[in-house]
């Protein structure tokens, strides 16, 4: 029996190209742009299931990965995405490079520019470093996390993962739990989810939620039960253990008692899906059994990360010598 195939519903996006030249954050991306990235990523996900997981799409495009801050999964995910698209890649990490010899970001950038690089993926501890980089190089810049500002590709892969379970973002109830203040993941997710019409609830100790963040169109609660009531997706953020000394909460144990999701919550909310940007502290944000629960879709997020980054690289790559005046 041959299968019949229905493709009539594939062309769902209303635009065919991004308005932006860079991906610095999702705050200024429109719903149509976000949907275009998600739709493109779905097609690239299919490539990842083939026997030969590589397409020649970005042959001849050179991408530099500038990681000024340690990162494992984001860096590997970007590198894989670049290789799957046949781009030439150069890696640069702060340790063991000229940065440890005192070179400034500007000098590093100008050296890279002199090497004729087409695209730069940057992770930096200072918010705004990617924006600043766009002013000193001609390359297309992709933000892979800048301080506590934004981490757009993480939010996009979160959205792609959610879209596998829900047909629309309109009216979807998403709760983001934990250290909102220091989280670039939370910020990018808030921007993208509210743009797409989802209802976002933030939950965590008062010390970890910025004052007045309701201005971004989100609901804030300090009670986990309230955050999980009627919630479709709970996204737990990593408690940064290195902030333990800064008295933002009394102890990890107490944090888990008040804000950690346990098996009991999973039983009480039988449709709740659990997400986490990783790496997880088992027994802090999520009880260990919750991490391994069938409704924890954390590893799907990782798989989708490569497809999302392929889509972003594909949509932003531009032919050489084309200096269009698109807004950053």
């Amino acid at each position, binding site marked *: 029996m041959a299968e019949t*195939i229905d493709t009539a519903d*594939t062309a769902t996006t209303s635009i065919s190209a991004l308005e932006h030249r860079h991906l610095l954050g999702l705050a200024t991306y429109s719903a149509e742009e976000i949907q275009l990235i998600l739709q493109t990523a779905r097609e690239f996900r299919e490539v990842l299931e083939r026997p030969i997981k590589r397409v020649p799409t970005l042959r001849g495009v050179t991408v530099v990965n500038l990681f000024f801050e340690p990162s494992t999964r984001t860096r590997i995910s970007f590198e894989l995405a670049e290789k799957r698209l046949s781009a030439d890649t150069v890696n640069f990490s702060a340790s063991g490079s000229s940065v440890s010899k005192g070179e400034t970001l500007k000098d590093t950038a100008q050296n890279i520019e002199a090497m004729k690089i087409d695209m730069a993926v940057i992770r930096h501890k200072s918010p705004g470093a990617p924006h600043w980089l766009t002013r000193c190089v001609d390359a297309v810049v992709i933000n892979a996390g800048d301080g506590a500002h934004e981490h757009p590709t993480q939010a996009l892969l979160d959205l792609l993962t959610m879209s596998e379970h829900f047909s629309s973002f309109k009216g979807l109830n998403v709760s983001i739990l934990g250290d909102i203040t220091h989280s670039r993941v939370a910020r990018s997710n808030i921007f993208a989810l509210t743009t797409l019409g989802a209802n976002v609830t933030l939950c965590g100790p008062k010390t970890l939620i910025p004052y007045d963040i309701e201005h971004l169109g989100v609901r804030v609660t300090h009670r986990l039960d309230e955050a999980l009531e009627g919630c479709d997706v709970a996204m737990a953020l990593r408690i940064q253990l290195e902030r333990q000394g800064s008295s933002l909460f009394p102890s990890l144990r107490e944090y888990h008692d008040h804000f950690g999701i346990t098996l009991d919550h999973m039983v009480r909310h039988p449709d709740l899906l659990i997400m986490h940007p990783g790496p997880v502290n088992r027994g802090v944000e999520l009880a260990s059994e919750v991490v391994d629960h069938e409704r924890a879709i954390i590893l799907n997020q990782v798989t989708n990360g490569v497809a999302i980054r392929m889509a972003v690289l594909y949509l932003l790559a531009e032919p050489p010598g084309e200096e269009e005046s698109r807004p950053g």
Partner: protein
Amino acid sequence: MEPQDVIKAQLMDARDLDRTLDRMARRIVELIDPGSEEARAFALIGMQTRGVFLARRLQAKIQEVEGFEVPVGVLDATMYRDDFRRRLKQPVVRETRIPFDVTERHLVLIDDVLYTGRTVRAAMDALMDLGRPASIRFLAIVDRGLRELPIRADIIGRDVPTMPGEEVRVRLHEIDDREGVWLVENPRAK
């Protein structure tokens, strides 16, 4: 039609197109020989976008006449195109869905118009990455000439030699507001 198109001639109406597809379906059946052992190893591959609908129509016609169902796959060769560095905007990547193993299969690749041959080249590369087909044949409704690569079609509906600046538009009722084939002048084409 595209917004800038100036229609020069209608090459086929709905009835002509249907007859052409009938004839092509018979040609495919001759290749397949549905009674044979080998027949199970055949499949049609429709190229996005209109090739997909053409493949489904051919599948239905073969089914009607022979009672034999040929599987259909959908291919988008955008990721394999060679003109990436010459375009201003990226084309939208559309779905590729081939619900069978292409290795050891006899494939008939289906598109609406054969022109430079570059799309077919990209499609063949894409299929090779999916496996090792036993053979690939190519079917197009119109061959408009002006080839840039050493590629030819195995089954062709009509030969229409064209000039640069002209375009051939195949329009299908499944996705268009009309049905038939037109020769147009497009001022944006080189």
